[in-house]
């Protein structure tokens, strides 16, 4: 059983759940405490010790039954039992009409013999399924196995066999019973195959180490990512955010705000007999405030999901974050981020604002911002724009941008395009760039990490 649990943990890891050594040790201790007899208790004890994120619970729930199901296939019964000698002879005679290959399978089903381990091993070799490591393929793989065994032909042949027996004058009742029993055996064998397929996939999951494309991921441009990479990317962004969080904690600027601290003063002056000679002031933590405006128009879509997940992570980090997205107008998205898990919130935002053709209008969005949300920017706020500055030849409203930049403590622009392209075509970047304190090209994770690192320094 311990081995099985270890395999289960390996499979969890392979599916992207982070399980540390300490946690797996906890799992074993928990199982030791409560045993494995009661399945629900066993499940709860594994879940409480191994899974620490809400979003990993579905993975756990999917894998758990696959690993800890009572693994016996349903029993098969000998369908030929209860036949009279004459009828058995009849059956043997009818069977002789089919070719050897079909006859073997049919006899197996009639006698109720499950597939032997050797046969299953042969099947695996034939299908060469060592690449498959996702349980979603279980049914598909089972069907492949059925095909390899010519299941359909066998089924047809069995129907024909019944027909034949009927013609040969077998007792109706016996024939019906035979038919039912053979059907049940077929289903049982299918179930056996399904379970075997599942087992096979689990084996693959445990053995195949998950890919580690982290290095490649860091330096790959955002355009080159496909859907599969996005999941990894999210993980990476989360990791980055966690790293930044600790760094941020160290860097929160401590300033003397001048507020008098009575307790500290009393304590400092105990040595002077209570005469307040040294005055103490309260340490005041200056927390950053952020306003982020993110372009999610068509030209930015390839990286907007990622940028939004980053903004989500930042909002987690810095409570005073106001996040906005825009295409042709501005939307306040922080409330979504506060109440939903990351992927859900991002999907919602992207759904709410579908991309269009040539409708990006930063100028108008800045006007929206100026009218409604300007009070979110004050002298402690860092104002961040994420976008390519491509404005479809609309008025860039540099005047408003200048007002905002002047109000803010710092203005930062993250642009996925290389500086050489700034100002070409409909890009207004050349106009905005001088008004920003910093501009960064951000087209891969490495650049993103560097930019954020610098950004939090302010």
């Amino acid at each position, binding site marked *: 059983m311990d081995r099985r649990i270890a395999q289960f943990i390996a499979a969890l890891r392979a599916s992207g759940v982070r399980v540390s050594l300490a946690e797996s040790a906890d799992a074993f201790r928990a199982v030791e*405490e*409560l045993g494995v007899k009661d399945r629900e208790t066993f499940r709860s004890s594994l879940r*409480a010790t191994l899974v620490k994120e809400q979003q990993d619970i579905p993975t756990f729930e999917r894998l758990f039954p696959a690993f800890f199901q009572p693994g016996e296939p349903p029993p098969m019964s000998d369908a030929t039992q209860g036949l009279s000698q004459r009828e058995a002879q009849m059956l043997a005679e009818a069977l002789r009409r089919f070719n050897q290959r079909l006859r073997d399978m049919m006899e197996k089903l009639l006698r109720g013999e499950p597939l032997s381990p050797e046969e299953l091993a042969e099947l695996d070799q034939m299908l060469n399924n060592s690449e498959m490591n996702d349980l979603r393929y279980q049914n598909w793989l089972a069907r492949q196995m059925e095909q390899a065994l010519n299941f359909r032909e066998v089924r047809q042949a069995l129907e024909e066999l019944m027909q034949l027996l009927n013609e040969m004058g077998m007792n109706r009742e016996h024939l019906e019973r035979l038919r039912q029993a053979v059907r049940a055996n077929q289903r049982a064998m299918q179930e056996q195959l399904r379970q075997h397929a599942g087992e096979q996939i689990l084996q693959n999951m445990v053995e195949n180490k998950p890919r580690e494309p982290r290095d490649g991921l860091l330096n790959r441009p955002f355009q080159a990512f496909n859907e599969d990479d996005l999941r990894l990317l999210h993980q990476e962004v989360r990791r980055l955010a966690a790293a930044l969080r600790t760094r941020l904690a160290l860097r929160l600027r401590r300033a003397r705000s001048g507020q008098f601290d009575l*307790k500290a003063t009393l304590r400092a002056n105990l040595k002077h007999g209570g005469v307040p000679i040294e005055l103490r002031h309260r340490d005041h933590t200056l927390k950053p405030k952020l306003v982020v405006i993110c372009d999610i128009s068509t030209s930015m879509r390839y990286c907007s999901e990622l940028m939004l997940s980053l903004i989500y992570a930042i909002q987690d980090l810095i409570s005073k974050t106001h996040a906005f997205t825009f295409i042709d107008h501005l939307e306040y998205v922080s409330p979504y981020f506060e109440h939903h898990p990351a992927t859900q919130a991002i999907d919602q935002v992207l*759904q709410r604002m579908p991309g269009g053709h040539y409708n990006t209008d930063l100028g108008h969005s800045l006007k929206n911002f100026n009218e409604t949300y300007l009070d979110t920017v004050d002298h402690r706020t860092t104002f961040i724009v994420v976008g390519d500055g491509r404005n479809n030849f609309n008025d860039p409203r540099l005047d408003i941008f200048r007002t905002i930049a002047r109000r803010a403590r710092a203005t930062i622009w993250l642009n996925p395009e290389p500086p050489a392209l700034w100002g070409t075509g409909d890009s207004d970047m050349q106009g905005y760039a001088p008004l920003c304190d910093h501009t960064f090209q951000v087209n891969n994770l490495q650049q993103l990490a560097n930019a954020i690192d610098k950004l939090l320094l302010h």
Partner: protein
Amino acid sequence: MTRFTNPQHLKAALGKQNYIASDEIATVMYLSQQLGKPVLAEGPAGVGKTELAKALAGATGFELIRLQCYEGLDETKALYEWEYAKQLLYTQLLRDKLSDTYAQALTLHEAADRLAAEEDVFFSMRFLLQRPLLKAILSAQPTVLLIDEIDRADAEFEAFLLEVLSDFQVSVPEIGTLQAVHRPLVVLTSNNTRELSEALKRRCLYLFIDYPSLEQELAVVRLKVPDLSPKLARQAVELVQRLRGMDLRKAPSISETLDWAKALVTLNANSLDQATLETTLSVLLKHEADLQKAKRHLFSPPQRDRRSGMEPPTPRWQN
């Protein structure tokens, strides 16, 4: 003072405290007792995470010590603080006694030595103001420590908490290291407004409490608001469950269901007709937009009803 012998025992004990625990909750709490690990309870607001700790304290007979987290919470508020004013007052009042102490001293050196021998008086437990964490550690009786809404505290505080939660010992520079007499049963709650650090999660058992199923919620309502007729209670709970399926800014939680049930009893309602709903729905839904949406949903003809309750399919965006 009870130590539980198995999860069922714990579940029954919680039941006596009017807390209906699922098997999972009972199992995790039992494991927490056996392994000596804190439990991190996550889930939407108002599903009874805090209540769980209170019920646990009631069931065990231990004292409940609660630390409510908020932004800016620091060690002096969570752990301990010296009572400066008291120290100062004592020095003033004891001045005569102090001068007696070093009156016979012949040299300055000797006087200083004598004073040093006494200085422990001023940095002793007498002047230490115990905050929740230290209280839980020093308590002579075992306790239940509830660290509520840990996600509201800052990341630094979380890091500090790690140290306390892993060894249950605290070092006070003037006194020395204080070791826990009994390991408290620790329950941390989080509404998941920000992600907690991996390190903290690793040290805890994880318990996700979701909205209850219809039957569970009905059982809670029947238990806490026994005056509500069974039929009406079922109708009410069904309605709440339906509201949770809608896309609302803030879905009603169990505590709101209970408030609503109480409101229904107070108003002597005998059916959930439109008039009753109009007047009482605001107990369940706390946002005006949600309220409007729910009313549209509930008072519209049934065929539209079904459609609006369904989630739209989630299309993936394309490049």
